[in-house]
């Protein structure tokens, strides 16, 4: 057995994970594993809970994307209790949801994944972070970022009650509306968000697209896979974060499936491996062929680039322009360049901002008709939204009294489990040769998962961040010291 390299913990994502790299005798990568070591058990410990508590309980699957869970859960409740919300409630939900997409996508670009480009992939570890970004872009721009996130999160907090773990979702509506003063205040923020989203895309252009090395990295082979793609689209096949049909396209962009949330289990199945707590979803109709890409493999991807690949257009005009530029630079749709997820994320942030303006300009948003009370007996409900990190599925079954008897969750990053494992292995094989290992190269391996903006607490709906383990190797990749935290 050859030498082993461990990256532990991986950083600048939500959740914990570790990467194990095994070298052959030449010092090249033989195999790499991307392990997710968490499990909490939401699907089990929610059993026996009343259905209407689920939007608040499942929000705690993730404190970075609680609004996604809250919304998927609320929609599952609509289905469970067979009740449609009034139009005002839908507008309010969508407003909160788009505010969330906007601020979360910006969190990822500037705080989590972006530093690799803004500061540099092999910059010193102490600088590869938001503080390094602030030093690079200056306090003025940093101030703008912080302010716009604070203000859009304030929209979520005002309507949702809390921004970390909102409370307002109910079957058939919401608990709270807005008045005209709030609406005007939010409209001003929404318009500023559009401006900021455009600025972020410009920054991406200046920092990344004008840098030949970065462009080579993006279109290069180390960071790409030809997979299927999944995401929500509206009747016109435009990107929609909140509702409508799930669409799946093959690696050439042909539609292979289009289904209602209620039918998700006909299309998706999950595999289990002994080396990770995460499960590995795949397309049933294509079949599980292992950790390989291509048309014959059921592996598929979700999240920003996937959503752009799956759709035919964005739903808002400025975002549509940005999308067209993205595909023209990348050589058409679908694009398989994993690093381009960072770019697609910013295009989506622009749509989210534009959509907020549209919703706030709709006069019905200040009506107080915010709830239709259910009268049916509950039994089964499924709700799907597009979380920032991918398609999010909440499936509940209850007794007649609305207490949960079965919960199945397939959570965003979960869908990307196999692709991430594949991306890590491919990047490791491409970057580590002849036993040459250093912090910069290892960070570039980690860069293979960051575009997915993973959320491992989500993906395993598991609570259990795990601990740290470090193997120190000499320059041959040989482990000379192991520091381990054992149970």
């Amino acid at each position: 057995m050859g030498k082993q390299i461990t990256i532990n913990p991986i950083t600048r994502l939500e959740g914990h994970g570790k990467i194990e790299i095994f070298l052959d005798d030449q010092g090249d990568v033989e195999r790499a594993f991307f392990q997710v070591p968490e499990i909490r058990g939401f699907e089990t410990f929610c059993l026996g809970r009343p259905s209407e508590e689920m939007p608040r309980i499942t929000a705690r699957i993730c404190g970075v994307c609680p609004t996604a869970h809250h919304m998927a859960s609320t929609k599952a409740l609509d289905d469970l209790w067979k009740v449609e919300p009034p139009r005002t409630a839908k507008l309010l939900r969508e407003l909160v949801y788009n505010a969330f997409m906007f601020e979360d996508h910006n969190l990822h670009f500037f705080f989590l994944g972006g530093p690799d480009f803004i500061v540099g992939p092999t910059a010193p570890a102490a600088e590869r972070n938001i503080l390094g970004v602030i030093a690079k872009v200056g306090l003025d721009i940093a101030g703008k970022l912080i302010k716009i996130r604070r203000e859009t999160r304030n929209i979520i907090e005002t309507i949702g009650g809390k921004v970390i773990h909102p409370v307002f979702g109910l079957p058939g509506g919401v608990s709270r509306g807005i008045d005209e003063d709030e609406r005007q205040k939010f409209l001003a923020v929404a318009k500023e968000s559009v401006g900021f989203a455009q600025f972020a895309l410009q920054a991406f252009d200046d920092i990344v697209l004008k840098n030949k090395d970065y462009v080579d990295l993006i279109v290069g082979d180390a960071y790409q896979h030809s997979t299927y793609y999944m995401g929500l689209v509206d009747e016109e096949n435009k990107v929609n974060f909140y509702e409508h049909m799930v669409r799946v396209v093959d690696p050439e962009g042909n539609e292979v499936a289009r289904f209602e949330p209620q039918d998700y289990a006909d299309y998706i199945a999950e595999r289990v491996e002994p080396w990770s707590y995460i499960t590995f979803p795949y397309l049933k109709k294509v079949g599980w062929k292992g950790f390989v890409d291509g048309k014959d493999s059921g592996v598929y991807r979700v999240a920003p680039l996937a959503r752009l690949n799956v759709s035919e257009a964005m739903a808002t005009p400025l975002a549509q322009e940005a999308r067209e530029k993205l595909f023209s630079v990348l050589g058409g749709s679908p694009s398989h360049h994993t690093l381009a997820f960072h770019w697609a994320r910013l295009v989506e942030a622009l749509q989210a901002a534009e959509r907020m303006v549209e919703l706030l300009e709709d006069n019905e948003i200040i009506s107080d008709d915010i709830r239709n009370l259910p009268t049916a007996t509950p039994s089964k409900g499924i709700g799907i939204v597009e979380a920032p990190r991918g398609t999010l599925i909440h499936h509940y079954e209850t007794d007649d009294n609305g207490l949960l008897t079965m919960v199945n969750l397939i959570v965003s990053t979960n869908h990307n489990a196999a692709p991430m494992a594949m991306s890590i292995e491919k990047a490791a094989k491409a970057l580590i040769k002849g036993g040459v290992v250093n912090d910069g190269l290892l960070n570039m391996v980690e860069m293979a998962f960051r575009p997915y903006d993973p959320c491992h607490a989500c993906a395993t709906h598991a609570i259990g961040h795990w601990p740290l383990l470090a193997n120190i190797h000499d320059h041959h990749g040989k482990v000379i010291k192991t520091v381990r935290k054992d149970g």
Partner: protein
Amino acid sequence: MAKPKVAFYWCASCGGCEEAVVDLAEDILKVVEAVDIVLWPVALDFKLKDVEAMADGEIAVSFINGAVRLSEQEEWVKLLRRKSGLVVAFGSCSHLGGIPGLANLTTIEEIMANKYDRAPTIDNPDGTRPLPRPVVDGYELELPVAWNTVKRLDEVIDVDYYLPGCAPPPESIMTAVQAILAGELPPKGAVLSPEKTLCESCPLNESKPDELVITEFKRVATSQPKPDECYLAQGFICLGPATRSGCGERCIHGNMPCRGCFGPPPGARDQGTKLLSAIASAGAAENKDEADLFAKGFVDPAGTLYRFSVPSSILKRTLKGK
């Protein structure tokens, strides 16, 4: 003079406490000017070896969030305890057990079976399970062991202060950080939040009757809460009477009743039974049959009254299961 060193670490957590720190917004710039953040896996690339290289007590304060439910989390928090002057249990999970603590109402075997065998979308004909020491194609790997019982942070290490909430409000975080930097802290073991119950600071307080009577329970699934009247008086279960104040009543401002994330007020050893006492006592039943019917209307008492605090309850976990 060197800036004091601060660490943020997460155990079994959702990342919300990390977001709460980021929600300091502009204030975070003041914080990073005053302190040196030496560990924060969500945002910074510092690794285990960096912490281990420090001297004992070199970190001025570690803010640890998340419940302890994995084998290695115990080791990790013990390491931070050694390297830190102060340890603050940050957020409901480390303070009380939090939402992950609901797993103490079931078993880890049920969790694993539901997830890897019984889920409707699972395709696992060989019954594969994640293992602590799997060997895959000859490669030896490792996964942490998930305990059956979820623990609070202070069951594992000595904790100096508790910052309650799911997640703690940015204002409380800022106040706590400033107090620590100025050396103006209450006696050890304090919960850094007011000593009163939520009812006392609730905006709906005036409509809470002196003699509360609940004839029948209402559920938000099938009724709409009114935003201007005490929820208990309306018949909705609200945990305000035995929940510590300090959250700003954000849920109430969202027109939803309290679910107790700040934990019990001082003097209440067990949040759930105190709440049960208060809520049940408000019933109007005149005989056993009426009392039984009244109780039936309160579906899921354990999961509601101990929503965030099963691991800090007297019973701590269910006996049910194998």
